[in-house]
């Protein structure tokens, strides 16, 4: 078993690692021990500001700082970052296209025991609808580090979707080349394609193995940059495999599934099946139990892959 690291931890570590750039300023809203910006704070206390429990103000302060040449990382739980401060992100950050990075931790149902109020599962949809916004949802610690670096290098708003739960490291740090806006083919296969993001990518890899045991060759594509999405890799997968499954830790609407469907409908329509939380809120529980209850499992990906294959056969008749 490979080692497990939460993407929020990798985020805090990366901020500290790249923090020698004096343009970087980090804001937090009384959650620095949870968002892990405290790692940056320990190293660069003069550029870390606790804005208190006031996320709306934090986002617009971040905007003001960025107009003065700062690269601002504003952090909170995804629910407060993307939804409580939604309109501040829209009007003060995205509309003027300012250099603010939103480090949104505790995204998705994997928050676990804190329950539905804190399990932000609508944020991709909300953020994706905003012009000028770039959305990155890393699958592991290696990808998170690369995403933070890319966010620093990009001049404009970025939403980093990060998790609380410790997740396996799937990439080899030494060999991984992160390209903003480009999907990553993790497994080859021509029967069906599983497209995933965040912690669902680990499950997609497991599903690949399960399908292989049954003689089905599933391609696995990890999408870290949800916006702008990699139309090329998705269209190619649609053409070459003819059936897609999209797996994400998000509600049914507006997320990666919607984004993939938009690309496919526009370019090369093929059957697309979804693995997500459906149209419902989460609940309290241990993450592993919640994954089962909400169908976020390799087994469910396998079953959806088979459905997609069936649909493909019908289409081809």
């Amino acid at each position, binding site marked *: 078993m490979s080692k497990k690291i939460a993407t929020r931890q990798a985020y805090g570590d990366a901020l500290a690692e790249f923090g020698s750039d004096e343009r970087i300023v980090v804001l937090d809203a009384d959650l620095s021990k949870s968002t892990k910006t405290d790692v940056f704070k320990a190293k660069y206390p003069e550029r870390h500001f606790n804005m208190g429990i006031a996320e709306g*103000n934090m986002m617009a302060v971040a905007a003001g700082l960025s107009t003065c040449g700062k690269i601002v990382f504003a952090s909170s739980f995804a629910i407060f970052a993307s939804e409580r401060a939604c309109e501040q992100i829209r009007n003060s950050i995205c509309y003027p296209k300012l250099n603010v990075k939103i480090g949104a931790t505790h995204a998705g149902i994997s928050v676990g025991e804190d329950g539905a109020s804190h399990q932000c599962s609508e944020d991709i949809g909300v953020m994706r609808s905003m012009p000028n916004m770039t959305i990155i949802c890393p699958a592991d610690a290696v990808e998170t580090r690369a995403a933070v670096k890319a966010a620093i290098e990009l001049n404009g708003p970025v939403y980093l979707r990060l998790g609380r739960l410790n997740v396996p490291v799937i990439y080899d740090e030494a060999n991984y080349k992160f390209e903003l806006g480009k999907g990553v083919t993790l497994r080859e296969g021509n029967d069906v394609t599983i497209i995933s993001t965040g912690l669902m990518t680990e499950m997609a890899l497991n599903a690949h193995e399960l399908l292989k045991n049954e003689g089905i060759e599933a391609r696995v594509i990890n999408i870290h940059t949800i916006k702008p999405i990699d139309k090329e890799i998705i269209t190619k997968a649609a053409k070459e495999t003819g059936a897609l499954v999209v797996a994400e830790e998000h509600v049914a609407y507006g997320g990666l599934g919607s984004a993939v469907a938009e690309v496919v409908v526009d370019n090369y329509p093929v059957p697309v099946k979804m693995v997500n939380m459906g149209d419902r809120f989460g609940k309290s529980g241990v993450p592993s139990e919640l994954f089962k209850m909400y169908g976020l499992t390799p087994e469910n990906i396998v079953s959806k892959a088979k459905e997609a294959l069936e649909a493909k056969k019908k289409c081809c008749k």
Partner: protein
Amino acid sequence: MDKCKTDEFKKIAYRIRKHIIEGTFNAGSGHPGGSLSCTDILTVLYFHSMNIDPKNPKAPDRDRFVLSKGHCAPALYGTLAERGFFPKEEIVKLRRIDSYLEGHPCMKSVPGVDMSTGSLAQGFSASVGMALAGKIDKKDYHVYTILGDGELEEGQVWEAAMAAAHFKLNNLIAFVDHNGMQIDGYITEVMSPEPVVGKFKAFGWNVINIDGHDYEQIIDAIEQGKMQKDKPTMIVAETIKGKGVSFMEGQVGWHGKAPDKEQRDKAIAELDEFLAGLEVE
């Protein structure tokens, strides 16, 4: 202040007021009432207090200004045009599809606009961010902002007020354009933010209460603000909504309504008469 200097401010302010009338008349919409009430403050800021250069609007060490009450863009645009940030001929194109003069201030399109605003309270928070950047960088610039008094009903104003005092942002000088009215009526009837002075004092600000149409008082208040060692300054400026146009003064109805042709002619005639009076003296 000598009379000559006062007259100079008056002339500038009345030219800005004409821009407000012409802009909103040509657009057929906009917010003349609150624009006219904050015109004298903008005049002092852009023609006396602020360190700015229209030829270099992005100079890193310049003073910053944020119109947190962004709907009063006609006043800001009129001021920027008079100060030379863009041609005065643009004013009549306010809100048009072929113009860069957006209905609310847009920092990406309008030369001299330091922050895009329009959604109330967000500009105030942004000005806190700019002041904080000045502290991080150990720069001497000041950040100025104008809030509406109705805007004080937004909870975020008080989040920003708390943060500015907490970080001891003595480089932040804010105004409340206290004209007492908002879209739906008198602020005390809609949702009273009073006592405004007491509230900002309680939030740890240096608070100065002035006549917002008295240039000397505006200048003195800014100077007092600049001398603060560890507090941000809130200048609560008592103003008259629609100031300078007799039939708009003190009228709630002119919050967000453009003058028609007849009203425009009457307003311009009044303002011209006032200016002519100053020339003769």
